[in-house]
């Protein structure tokens, strides 16, 4: 049931704006160029209003901009001293339970919490006290989970459940000791898509592959297409000294719109493997070694052999199997080749099942 879209007029920091009903204050503010800081809000997941950092003033009381829909005649103030002080204190509270190790943290420079600490110039928190400390580390192969850095924003829990449909992690324990973890605090054992790593605002979730492999500002980002399957996700390769040290995906780019799977995100090491084939190989003598050849030579061999088999035994003696690592276009061409050039319907694909 589509709701009729009514336009709602309101004022944000003195700026008049009209937006469709149902728009949140946060989104409305964005439209007039006002960025309201938020740690738990993420466009890909449902809202929770947990971090409280996006609080704004409406009629003297504080509401969270990410959850509150606009209403007619609303007057929103996003930057009064009251709001700014409160936000500062909320960041301060979070920092009072956060390791002060930005200088060695992989997330430095990309950390949303660090950005806010910088913005509000919080060198030493006003609030002090016990910090969560966990001895146990997660032994999974892909994701470094440092729960001391977790700010309980819940983005990872939600993207795992709502977007990936896996539900590998959730909140456990209560209050100050609340903790995001897999069931019974076992090592993470999921698909390892790493969507959680992508949305984590702090250094709590990091790809193990790229820990201490370089700062992001020392890398070149190269856009590419994932070679693993026909979906053809758009990748962002982070290259340092001509080596890929990390792979991410950007929101708004390609079919994947920021999402990746375990292969695309974590399985890039083969690119610089010394074992990679760089030319076609042909076994020229029976029992002999595979020897490097040119593409022309290799294709010539394949064509002549196929032709021979077809002449001798008919086209149905030939079958073609193609790969999910090829693009859809490649696969299309392959079946076309099998049917039109070879003349058989014996064509199949590893992702058919």
């Amino acid at each position, binding site marked *: 049931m589509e709701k009729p879209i009514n336009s709602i007029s309101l004022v944000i920091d003195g700026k008049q704006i009209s937006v469709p009903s149902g728009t949140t204050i946060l989104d409305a503010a964005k439209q007039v160029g006002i960025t309201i800081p938020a740690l738990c809000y993420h466009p890909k997941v449902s*809202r929770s209003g947990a971090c409280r950092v996006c609080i704004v003033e409406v009629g003297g009381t504080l509401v969270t901009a990410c959850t509150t*829909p606009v209403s007619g005649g609303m007057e929103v103030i996003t930057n009064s001293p009251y709001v700014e002080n409160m936000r500062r*204190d*909320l960041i301060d509270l979070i920092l009072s339970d956060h390791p002060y190790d930005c200088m060695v943290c992989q997330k430095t420079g990309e950390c949303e919490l660090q950005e806010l600490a910088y913005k509000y110039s919080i060198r030493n928190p006003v609030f002090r006290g016990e910090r969560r400390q966990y001895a146990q580390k997660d032994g999974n192969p892909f994701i470094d989970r440092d729960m001391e850095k977790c700010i309980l924003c819940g983005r990872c829990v939600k993207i795992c459940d709502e977007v990936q449909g896996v539900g590998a992690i959730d909140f456990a324990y209560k209050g100050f000791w609340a903790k995001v973890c897999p069931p019974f605090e076992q090592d993470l054992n999921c698909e390892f898509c790493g969507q959680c790593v992508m949305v984590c605002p702090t250094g709590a979730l990091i790809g193990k592959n790229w820990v201490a492999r370089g700062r992001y500002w020392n890398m070149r980002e190269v856009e590419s297409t994932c070679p693993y399957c026909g979906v053809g996700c758009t990748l962002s390769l982070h290259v340092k000294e001509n080596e890929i040290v990390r792979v991410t995906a950007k929101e708004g780019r390609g079919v994947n719109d920021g999402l990746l799977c375990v292969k695309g995100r974590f399985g890039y090491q083969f690119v610089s493997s010394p074992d990679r084939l760089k030319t076609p190989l042909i076994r020229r003598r029976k029992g002999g070694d595979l020897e490097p050849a040119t593409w022309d030579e290799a294709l010539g061999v394949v064509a002549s052999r196929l032709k021979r088999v077809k002449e001798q035994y008919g086209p149905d003696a030939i079958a073609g199997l193609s790969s999910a690592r090829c693009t859809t276009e490649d696969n299309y061409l392959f079946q076309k080749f099998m049917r039109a050039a070879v003349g058989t319907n014996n064509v199949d694909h590893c992702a058919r099942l």
Partner: protein
Amino acid sequence: MSTSSVEIKVCLGTSGNAAGGEEVLRLFRHYVFDRAVEARIGTRCEFRKVGCRGFCSKDVLVDVIINGSKTTYQSVKPIMVERIVDDHIVGGGPIPEWMAGDEYTSFHSKQYKIILGPCGEIDPENIDDYIRMNGYRAARKAVTKMTPDGVIDVVTQSGLRGRGGSGFSTGEKWRICRGQKNDTRYIIGNVGEVNRALAEGNPHAIIEGLLIGGYAIGAQKGYLYIRERYHLSVERLRTALDQARDKGFIGKDIFGSGFDFNIEFSFGTESFICGEETALMESIEGKRAMPRYRPPFPAEKGLWGMPTVINNAETFSNIPLIIGMGADWFSSIGTAESKGTKVFTLSGKVKNNGLVEIPMGMPLREIVYSIGGGIAGNRKLKAVQVGGPSGGIIPESMIDMGLDYESLRKVGSIVGSGGMVVFDDEDCIVSVTKFFVEFLQRESCGECTPCRIGTKRMLELLIKITDGTGEIEDLDTLNRLSGIMTASSLCGLGRTASNPFITSFNHFRDEYLAHIRDKKCPAGVCPALVVFMVVPEKCKGCGLCRKACPAGAVTGEIKKAHDINQELCIKCGACYKVCKLKAIKKQ
């Protein structure tokens, strides 16, 4: 002696049970049979299990009613039953020394028990008892003779406000929910800790209230949400629900009106946050109990995304009375803004502890002194904490205030869950505050920043102060924390968690300063700040304190003044308590 009717009522609430009520009832049956009482008096003896009357410190309470004349016995133990049967029921002579005394009378006489009243009278496991006192008549009237809007009008006019939380108008809440477009709606009874006496003593009133509410808002289904651990409450509610179903009060085509309504249980665990309405809905949906942001409010988008009314069980218990006796009757009780009665759990340093129901607006003084019988041990009243863990601490000087929503809000407290703890001059207000904050910190769900970390930091600072290492700036930090938590927390828990600190700091600033500046705990409670010493002139060397000391810190020869080794002393106060000569002083 010949008589025509004998009725024996045994209190079998949770407390009555714990005090051996089941055994007492069994023995009454046994001796009445053994002495052939029924043959002798020529009539049947009626035995009745009844719910809690609130005076739990004197359980087991037993009424013996002969020809309409009632005698109440208190603290009845199994061994006392035989004599009550022989002397009183057979012999006709009540036993004065076992009878409930003046405190039982004064405990009850100032109360106004419109909803707790039936709890000590009727058998909660027998629907006919409830029907005999007009039970389900209000539901029949509502469903067959009134329109849903008519019901909502009456509830609104009565002025009934929620008994579980912020005191929102119940009629208004129902109207908002009824006004939603969706066809599916839900109604939920929030049966909390303080509602156990109701659930155990008069479960049908809750069910009838839920039924009327369901009819009014157009719900097809109601839920009773209760902690699974409250076994007796669950059992009695379940029995009541089964009986109501058998009678056709719950189910299809209720009272031949075509209205279908069913009620289902949903169980919570040991968690304070499960009582918060949106966390509760998450819990019913099978998720972790973490509150939802508002708006949308539950009445617009609640359980399973549908419009939902959630009310406290006490709120629901009032509904049959309001429909049955009218809005005017109900609104004649209480104050201008707070109508009806409210149940409080009176505890702490008063003589009479228990569950009390008072008309809204009754002065706090009257509860403490008339109903509570004053301060135990005739000590001095210091403060009363009202509203449950996140209520405010009200000093003795303000004890003439009335107990109603507005007055309590004005002093920084809440009606909340109706908790009421009385403190005397031996209680340390900082420690008391620390106690409540400790609870709230433990029960915070951890979802939002200000509550998750704020309650922890608040507790740490209070511990620091009671440990004697507090600094003056800590008070600023505590006030700053209170401001953040109150204004920016996601749900009621965080928003009210600083009430104990704010109110106690406002009224007992000197006590905080004494802890911080003078390193003294004026009440002599905080171990780090108190020293136990022997006053040599008073000590006769009896040795009691030496024997009582668990740490071997007291030394001294018999008949000579003793001494306390401060290195070994663990500040437990055992010597202080045991000394009959007041020869030990706390500093």
